[in-house]
């Protein structure tokens, strides 16, 4: 179970550029939940994800993974609990390492690294079996450099890499945003398969409301650094994109009203 308690962070505090990116995010994600996160630009989606991954230390609040406080843990220490797929297809892998070397890096996530060969023949066989399921013909190209793959292929491999070792939560950071529609659909379907197969607890940030409602069992909307909507299972089943838009406008509208009250 992942718990975010009153997470807050302000960028460039005390300067004219001061931006409160999170203003007290509270979210409990029980095991097995697949949460999609939506929100407009600057809502705090990426900041929240970075805080969960450990790339960003919140000013206040705490993050608990299975009741263990990991707020002060750097990314590398947290990597045994958290797996991540980045938005940028180039970001989730090492371009000039080979496919199998990239898989080997992920294979050692959360483990002690030694002086043995990074890619053993047993590992290579395992990688071959994993990568064959993608049906991209990559099983015979394990020795190829990662930079020879297309964006979609790289995201598919990144997903496989994330799932190589057990984790408490899988973080997906708009991982289909940089892909063409057909490839995005393929990667999304692969995501659905892998998450279902291993019953992974997942948090997926997306900019598409359609996608947010189609996938997973729960949708959270962030706005100005707070959770403004949290619907799950039955409550979410009947929702349409228009409903979400409506709710979004209501949230923004009510804030306008607040401001109007203040100003009057």
């Amino acid at each position: 179970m992942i718990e975010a308690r009153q997470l807050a962070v302000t960028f460039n505090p005390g300067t004219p550029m001061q931006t409160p990116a999170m203003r007290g995010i509270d979210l409990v994600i029980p095991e097995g939940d697949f949460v999609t996160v939506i929100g407009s630009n600057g809502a705090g989606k990426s900041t929240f994800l970075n805080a969960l991954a450990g790339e960003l230390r919140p000013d206040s609040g705490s993050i608990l993974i299975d009741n263990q406080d990991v707020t002060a843990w750097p990314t590398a220490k947290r990597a045994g609990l958290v797996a991540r797929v980045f938005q940028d297809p180039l970001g989730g892998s090492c371009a000039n390492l080979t496919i199998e070397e990239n898989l080997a890096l992920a294979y050692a996530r959360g483990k002690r690294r030694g002086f043995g060969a990074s890619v053993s023949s047993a590992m290579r066989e395992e990688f071959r079996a994993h990568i064959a399921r993608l049906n991209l013909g990559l099983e015979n190209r394990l020795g190829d450099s990662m930079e020879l793959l297309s964006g979609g292929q790289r995201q598919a491999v990144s997903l496989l890499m994330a799932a190589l070792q057990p984790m408490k939560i899988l973080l997906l950071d708009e991982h289909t945003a940089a892909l063409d529609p057909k490839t995005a659909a393929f990667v999304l379907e692969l995501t659905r398969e892998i998450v279902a197969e291993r019953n992974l607890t997942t948090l997926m940030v997306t900019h598409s409301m359609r996608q947010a409602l189609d996938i997973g069992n729960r949708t959270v909307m962030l706005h100005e650094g707070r959770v403004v909507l949290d619907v799950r299972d039955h409550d979410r089943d009947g929702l349409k994109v228009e409903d979400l838009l409506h709710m979004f406008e209501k949230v923004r509208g009510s804030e306008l009203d607040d401001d109007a009250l203040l100003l009057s």
Partner: protein
Amino acid sequence: MSQIAFLGAIEVGLLFALVALGVYLSFRVLQFPDLTVDGSFPLGAAVCASLIVTGVDPYFASLAAALAGAGAGMVTAWLNVRLKILHLLASILTMIALYSINLRIMGRPNVALLGEKTVFTPLEALGMPSYVVLPIALAVLVLGVKLALDWFLNSEVGLAMRATGVNPRMARAQGIHTDRYILGGMALSNALVALAGAFFAQSQGAADVTLGVGVIVVGLAAVIGGEALINTRAVWRATFACIIGSIVYRLAVAGALNADLLGLQAQDLNLITAVLVTLAMVLPGVRMPFRKKGSTP
């Protein structure tokens, strides 16, 4: 070029191949432009020579030199990862500091090793002239270092170090403590450079505080030149390219100085180096660390 000049070029080329392997580790593997080299090379020479003249075993003195180099590399890395000083500047600071430290270690600007026992002394028993036997011994040593480095960079730890250089954010997400790998990699890189300095002092018969001037450019010339000559896709090819690059560079310099036609003299060495590095960088198909991305024709 005479045979002695030729073998001399090979000998110095092999010595600087160790520098090239160190520079490859920092510039290419960690993508950390490191000028500490100009200080850690004479540091190795200074530590080794000072210990030898006080009667320390030359093998132990060379090991101590390598350890001193590792320390210098860690200072640069620490300035960068802990104090967040820009890598290039961090390395310049260490390099400048080492100039004073080297003078302190030697107590004077140079230490002569004439008549002292060095790591090369046992080779005299073979009864061959030193200009023949030295290149052979160095070739064996450099090959050993190359193979050890190949093994290391293909181990789990070595792969993590390569990932740290290529994509640190991704590396951290895979549980790699990138700061520690930068510290370790810089230590290893400068240990190799200092070891080269120690051997250089022993083969030339003296350590001098000005020994380090331009060592980084020579190391870089070897790395870039090697890449221009050899495809470096796999690690073992890249380390091989460093060695070949270093030797070819020395032969090119010796050739240029020996060609009476050109009228070049020893003092033109740095100019020749700059021209050679520039030529190597504009050759097609070379990865260019200091040229802007996208400006490649």
